[in-house]
């Protein structure tokens, strides 16, 4: 007897489950959460805090805010940031001052922990929301963040 009741229950619970899937099948347009990536590239906007890659913003005079204090380099857990610096003569005061030569960022090693940006006292680096980072050679993932010929923005002290 339990054989037949099992068959009955099996069909019944199967139909109960199919009522759920059937509901979504009939109302597929209303509840659709699928994103049409990459066709929606123009409208796709990431959240402001999204951690894509570290960038160094420059203003229109090609000036950045990095003083070369190396706090980001110290904060980084896995050596993704290297700063090459030397002492150059400040044209305003005539004194020798620490200035960055290259702010090197290895995106391939970065774990997106955000400690460097937390550590930066002058807000020189920030997160960009770019996430399409695939390249053909991993050497492209090593980036120099300060643009060629860029200078320290006047008035930025750490």
């Amino acid at each position, binding site marked *: 007897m339990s054989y037949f009741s099992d068959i009955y229950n099996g069909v019944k619970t199967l139909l109960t489950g199919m009522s759920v899937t059937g509901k979504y099948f009939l109302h597929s347009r209303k509840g659709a959460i699928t994103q049409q990536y990459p066709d929606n590239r123009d409208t796709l906007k990431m*959240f402001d805090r999204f951690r894509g890659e570290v960038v160094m913003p420059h203003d229109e005079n090609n000036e950045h805010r990095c003083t070369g204090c190396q706090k980001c380099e110290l904060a980084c857990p896995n050596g993704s940031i290297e700063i090459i610096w030397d002492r150059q003569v400040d044209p305003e005061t005539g004194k020798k001052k620490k200035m960055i030569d290259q702010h090197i960022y290895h995106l391939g090693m970065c774990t997106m922990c955000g400690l460097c940006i937390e550590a930066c006292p002058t807000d020189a680096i920030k*997160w960009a929301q770019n996430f399409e980072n695939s390249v053909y050679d991993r050497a492209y993932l090593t980036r120099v963040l300060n643009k060629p010929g860029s200078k320290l923005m006047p008035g930025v002290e750490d």
Partner: protein
Amino acid sequence: MDTTPIINNFKSEEYQINMGPQHPATHGVLRLLLTIDGEIIKKVEPDLGYIHRSIEKMCERDSYQQIVHLTDRMDYLSSHINNEAVCLTVENALELEIPERVKVIRTIIAELTRIASHTLWWGVMGMDVGALTTYFYGFRDREMINDIFEETCGARLTMNYNIPGGLMFDIHPNFVKRTKEFIAHFKTKLPEYDLLLSNNIIFRKRMEGIGILTKEDAISFGASGPVGRASGYSCDVRKHHSYSAYDKVKFNEVLKTEGDTYSRYQVRVLEMWESLSIIEQLIDNIPEGDFFAKTNAVIKLPEGEYYQKVETARGELGVYIVSTGTKNPYRMKFRSPGFSNLSLLNHIAVGGKIGDLVATMATLDLVIPDIDR
């Protein structure tokens, strides 16, 4: 004279096969060496080490702020709770006074993490036993939580939102609104989970009565989390050793006594309801105030040994720090729930069929990077 030996084709003999490290049901790189007789399992030997990254050793190199992001990579489905465990240990050692706001936000996000982990588990476990639809429904609901995390923490999985002393930044203005939307959404979807899978007679016949773990064995194997609670072992760290804001909320510890795969399934589904009720109690009562307590730029723990345990989605995670007073820990040890839960697999799977092993393993909810570290 014919000297050909008589071959008995019906004699059974034991032989060994591999399950994994690339088997879809092992969820990662777990290799099981099965000794089987026909389809009956005689022995299960887990072979670990395929994803060992020496996180404990790397912790000895890093400062306490840097350690936090490594714990994201252990049990990646409850990464926020892992972060919280390390931060609580450091804060207790420093005897820091943590603002109430931090505690409440941490608790809300930890419970959201738990729901996200359980929905993923629910989808994947349905897929393991052959119900492919659950996978899509589980991920649909998890997606909303991931969006909340992405907006507030900046990442979907490895969030690294905690720092010793508080949070990295304040919650996003949309956080409360989105969380309420999620609660309203998930309350209509969670009953569908029962309709679709829990009450299905085919699923229940597959799950009931296999992989039975008694309460005594659960205690002696060190089972924790839903695996222990399904056997009647009351082991909820949130209840017994309350941390963060869990002492301010009312919730039930879900306990079952059968100890089979189906009760482990039920415990996790019921836990999602409990997590929802915890979030509901806290989401309107986030206190104002700072989102971090000030710490030194270089944290040096006083000399001594510190231990703190938390309840992740999988069970009890313990963090043990030995400090000699320098800026790095002398020794860091994680007691991960997955490792203890895996150790009892041989005990409960022997005598069953290979198909039952897949169902048993699915309800243990193993995350392999948590086991190997």
